[in-house]
């Protein structure tokens, strides 16, 4: 079960309706929110992918459950445009090398649960940015924590939050999962 902010039932509908309905639904959502679209039209997978690309929404993935295809999209959030402020950073490449040596390092993935589900660093823990404040207790103040998101912008905010909450060794991973070439896992 993948967490989403809304679910759209487009089952039984033929092309172009799944996209037409998705477009309408996503227009009413907040930036960064995740939409699950249930469809039965086999062509909808390729179209969701291509349509997301052309509109800037993020296509997370599709799960097949019997005859139903569940597509996951994240509404574009404009996060690519913001500059990062948090100063202690580490590159994808450096993190990958570091993880090979230090298996117990903590990688904190602050993307939405649905993004994490389709693709994440094997050892990463998932705490979406929106839940971070209430879940700080799950982390240890003295641990070295590498915060990662898709493009470095949400992790920048998360790193700032962590530091001001008293965490001592926090690094923001740049650019993040969008260009991660190391090993990944999925929980779908």
């Amino acid at each position, binding site marked *: 079960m993948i967490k989403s902010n809304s679910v759209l039932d487009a089952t039984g509908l033929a092309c172009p309706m799944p996209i037409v309905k998705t477009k309408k639904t996503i227009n009413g959502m907040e930036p960064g929110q995740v939409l699950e679209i249930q469809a039965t039209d086999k062509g909808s997978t390729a179209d969701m992918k*291509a349509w997301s690309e052309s509109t800037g929404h993020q296509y997370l993935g599709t799960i097949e459950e019997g005859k139903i295809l569940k597509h996951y999209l994240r509404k574009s959030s404009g996060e690519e445009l913001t500059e990062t402020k948090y100063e202690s950073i580490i590159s994808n490449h450096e993190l990958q090398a570091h993880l090979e040596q230090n298996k117990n390092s903590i990688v904190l993935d602050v993307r939405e649960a649905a993004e994490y589900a389709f693709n994440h660093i094997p050892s990463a823990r998932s705490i979406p940015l929106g839940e971070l404040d209430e879940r700080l207790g799950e982390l240890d103040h003295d641990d070295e924590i590498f915060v990662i998101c898709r493009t470095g912008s949400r992790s920048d905010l998360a790193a700032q939050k962590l530091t001001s909450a008293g965490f001592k060794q926090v690094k923001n991973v740049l650019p993040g999962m969008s260009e991660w070439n190391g090993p990944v896992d999925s929980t779908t």
Partner: protein
Amino acid sequence: MPINQMTATEVANRVINKNELFILDVRNQSEFKDWKIEGENIEVFNSPYFDLLDGVEEVMVHIPTDREVLVVCAKEGSSVLIAEMLYEAGLTAVSYLKGGMKAWSEHLEPVKIGDLDKGGSIYQFVRLGKGCLSYMVVTNGEAAVIDSTRMTDVYIDFADHIGAQITHVLDTHLHADHISGGRQIAEKTNATYWLPPKDATEVTFEYQPLEGGNVVTIGNTAIDIQALYSPGHTIGSTSFVVDHKYLLSGDILFIDSIGRPDLAGLAEDWVGDLRETLYRRYRELSDELIVLPSHFMIIEELNNDGSVAKKLGTLFAENHGLNIADDKEFRSMVTGNLPPQPNAYQEIRETNMGKITPDNEQQREMEIGPNRCAVR
């Protein structure tokens, strides 16, 4: 307002007659890149329907107003929507493709290749959308179908229409690019289904083994189909010489390319067989034989009447794949130049073996996309 629909048959006529047509293909880019409707005077422009939902103004500048415009999508729905939008935006000569690319992929255009010496004819069924060619040899009220597609009704209705009874159904090999209708036609018409046994080791149904040297006779006047063992595309690949005049080369030799040896095994294993077939066995045949392959790759391979056929002698002179003297160079050309494998080719092979029985919709999905059985 009702938008005109154009059938796959009408589009096929335009391709064959080289008529002008402007196609707005509204599928997503990757599907469009994979395959599209092609023709000498057919211009195609791709703009996905989902980019046009808010308005067609931007695409209008790419659409000519002096020609008929056909909107095409995967199944039909999106093309109707976009055609309506174009009509409302002032484009009057606009129609949509009935059944979309799905119908185009399934359309078969029968073309008469020629008459047989002792009476009768041979027909080629051109599947323009997929590049598959199949055949019907007819004489004296009897017919044989070769390398049929899964659109079995087309052959059965055609035989009915010309007053022939299908008595033999043959496949040159176990196909990997399309689902064979051979077994189904044989069941429906009580015909004998012939398959090369070396390709059929895993099939789950009864068939008549077809081996080199076999002669299948159709009609009382004895039109012979002589089987010629010609491995290389598959280990069992068999060619047929019909009425001493036509060479049905299966997926071994095409007009502008040659067969690929990797779809049912390893290219390295079968490239030697392919070489042997093309450079020795076929050389022993008459140059006058008319080669009728089971595929074409590019629209330029079509003759003016829509048929795909050329004399063997001409192919020996013009087909690059038949003119590589050096054995090593041939091997590297064949094994180093392999295009991507056809969509779902493993599942298609299993279907043709009778191991899996997908429903119609699944079969359609499996066959989506271009044909990729050749190397050039």
